[in-house]
């Protein structure tokens, strides 16, 4: 064939769709395997964790992020670099407490739910995108940061926005905060 196959825009979309569709098939399969929503959520989080621990290396190799000096910098990088790189979206970041350890990522658009109109019947507690929480948690742990990551709001459950809450659990090591003089 003479046309440049690699550059056709439809194929770029297929590549993006592949992940989203596969994720949908996975959630459907887990719903078949587990009756309780909490179990599905737990499994999605666990799988996400496994992915996150390996994804972080891929991320660091592709991006040129410099060492961070604060949780807020880290959260910014997650939102503006990582989410952009892998999902093509840039959630906005808000800080939820004065000690600057609790943050929220507000997702206006969520590619993972592109083909999902509503949660399946009888699955009102399903955190459809729970994989994302696990990924963030796993990735952070690989860079020695413990964090709780959960969905605080979910559009699929009727909330206005989809909000992921990140709570950093340990203070960053003092040495890492030393600035260059």
């Amino acid at each position, binding site marked *: 064939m003479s046309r440049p196959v690699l550059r056709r825009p*439809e194929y770029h979309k*297929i*590549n993006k*769709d592949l*992940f989203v569709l*596969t994720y949908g098939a*996975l959630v459907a399969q887990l719903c078949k395997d587990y009756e309780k929503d909490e179990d599905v959520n737990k499994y999605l989080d666990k*799988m996400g964790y496994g*992915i996150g621990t390996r994804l972080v290396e891929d991320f660091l190799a592709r991006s040129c992020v410099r060492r961070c000096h604060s949780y807020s910098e880290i959260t910014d990088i997650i939102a503006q670099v990582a989410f952009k790189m*892998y999902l093509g979206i840039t959630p906005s970041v808000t800080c939820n407490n004065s000690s600057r350890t609790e943050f929220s990522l507000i997702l206006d658009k969520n590619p993972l739910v592109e083909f999902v109109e509503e949660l399946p019947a009888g699955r009102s507690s399903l955190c459809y995108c729970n994989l994302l929480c696990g990924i963030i948690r796993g990735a952070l742990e690989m860079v020695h940061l413990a964090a709780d990551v959960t969905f605080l709001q979910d559009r699929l459950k009727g909330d206005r926005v989809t909000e992921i809450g990140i709570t950093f659990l340990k203070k960053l090591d003092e040495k890492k905060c030393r600035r260059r003089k």
Partner: protein
Amino acid sequence: MADAALFEFLHTEMVAELWAHHSDPGPGGQKMSLSVLEGMGFRVGQALGERLPQETLAFREELDVLKFLCKDLWVAVFQKQMDSLRTNHQGTYVLQDNSFPLLIRMASGLQYLEEAPKFLAFTCGLLRGTLSTLGIKSLVTASVASLPTCKFQVVIQKT
């Protein structure tokens, strides 16, 4: 491309997770897990097939469909073309990929040969699903002689 990486990571995790969950001590357990992955691949393949550009749906011959899978679909999904396509012109096709991306991360050669089928089940389903959307019923199996080279065998089912 970063998107591709995300799919690959998800696929690897799925293989690990579904395997652990469905595994039985007996040989029946292995079959069940492969068919679960294949079934998921099938559904995704069907959905992808529905998203293909319109002109691809106007194939004249079966061979054109297979060529399309080897070139366009493979590039869209794996960023490379299939390396070879052979057929007996009687409904059986062998598609060979010399460096299949989902096997690349594993060691090359004969190590992990036993594990390889788990990493191919989803893709077999994907091929079968896409063919199904294009109006072709098939049976797709895969074999690995030496990583990361693998062959997908497509047998068209005449109705």
